[in-house]
Each structure stands twice: as C-alpha cells, then as structure tokens.
C-alpha cells in the first residue's frame, strides 16, 4: 500500500492526489474533499484559520491510514491537509483511497476522514464579521 500524508500551507492539488492512488491495480478510487463553508449557523464565515501540531498530526494521519490498510484491501492512501488562512470554497483536506474494488475504497475513505476529524491535532478558527470561535472548543 502506498502512503502519501502531507500538510501544506499552500493550495492542495486534487489532480495530484487522484494520480497518486491511480495505479493499474486500483479499479476504484474514492476521494473526499473537505471545503470551507461560507456560513455556519446562518452567520457568514469570512475565513478559517487552520493550525497543526505538524509532527504529531503527520504521525496520527499515518496511523489512521495504516489502520485503514489493515481493515480494508486497499492499494494506496493520500491525505493532504491545509494549514493557514482559507477562504470560503477553498479546500482544507483531500483524502483519496485506491483499491481493487469500490467498497473497500469507499469504506476506507470514510473511516479515514471520520477518524482524522476526531483525533488528528489540527485546529480551525472560524472568523465571522463580529468575532471568531475555535471550532468544537467548548461543550
């Protein structure tokens, strides 16, 4: 299984991610793209500010990808995550999974993005016209 786990402070490259899991053995490729929404609870989002604990975030994402490789028969995983300031419509994360068959690719991709959101030390602050909040910080 190939792994390509990276954190960028520049725009992500979807075509690269798809190519990266497109080997001849991959009959199915599942891609998840996480973009910045223009609003939260009816309030206009001006921008998101992402920060990461880089070394640990990379390790955690690698663990998740390897766990996906144990659970499903997949040929490759790409996880590219952004940091820095992102505007509405920009891509914050891309997960791409290749597999011989579609179900493994789809299920593994879902597992990777769901687990990433729960455990990987990356944070985002939503900035509105009248203030800013760190997402999920408070009960």
């Amino acid at each position, binding site marked *: 299984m190939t792994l390509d786990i990276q954190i960028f402070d520049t725009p992500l490259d979807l075509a690269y991610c798809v190519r990266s899991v497109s080997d001849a053995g991959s009959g199915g490729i599942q891609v998840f793209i996480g973009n910045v929404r223009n609003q939260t609870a009816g309030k206009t989002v001006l921008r998101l500010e992402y920060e990461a*604990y880089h070394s*640990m975030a990379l390790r955690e994402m690698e663990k998740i990808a390897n766990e996906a490789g144990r659970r499903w028969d997949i040929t490759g995983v790409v996880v590219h995550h952004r940091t820095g300031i992102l505007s509405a419509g920009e891509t914050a994360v891309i997960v791409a999974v290749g597999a011989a068959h579609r179900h493994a690719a789809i299920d593994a991709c879902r597992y990777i993005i769901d687990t*990433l959101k729960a455990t990987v*030390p990356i*944070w985002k*602050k939503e900035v509105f016209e009248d203030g800013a909040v760190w997402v999920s*910080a*408070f009960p």
Partner: protein
Amino acid sequence: MKVDILTFGIAREICGGRLIQIDVEAGTDTDGLRLLLAERYPALSGLAQLNIAVNSEYVTEPVTLHPGDEIAIIPPVSGG
C-alpha cells in the same frame, strides 16, 4: 525541573504563547501537570476536552515527565 509545553489553538490563546514553561517537581506525572495547568490557566478548565501528548503520542494513562520530553496540550481538535 522546568518543562516546556507546546500549546495550540484555543489553548495557545489562553496560555498566551505557543511555548510555555512550567516548573514541576521531579517525578511529576501528566495528572500532576494537569493540576498545575488548571491552577495557572483556569480558563483551560472550560474547554470541552484537554488532552496531553508526550513525545507526539496521546497520553491515556498518567505518564511521568522527564527532562527533554516534548509535551503538548491538545484542546478539542477540529481538522478536516
């Protein structure tokens, strides 16, 4: 001994910097560190969750701190 602690996100804002230093007695573990942090930065207690990572691994059981450990406090994550 003094330990350096990395902070991120809202914890960084509460603590007032990416890197803080705390004086701990030798043998202090991560639970002891939590108490010291709560004393010094009461606002941390209001967070939904506060994890500690030692050498880039989440701590699930109390771990004794050693000089040179990379210690980080991890407020609720929100990647993706």
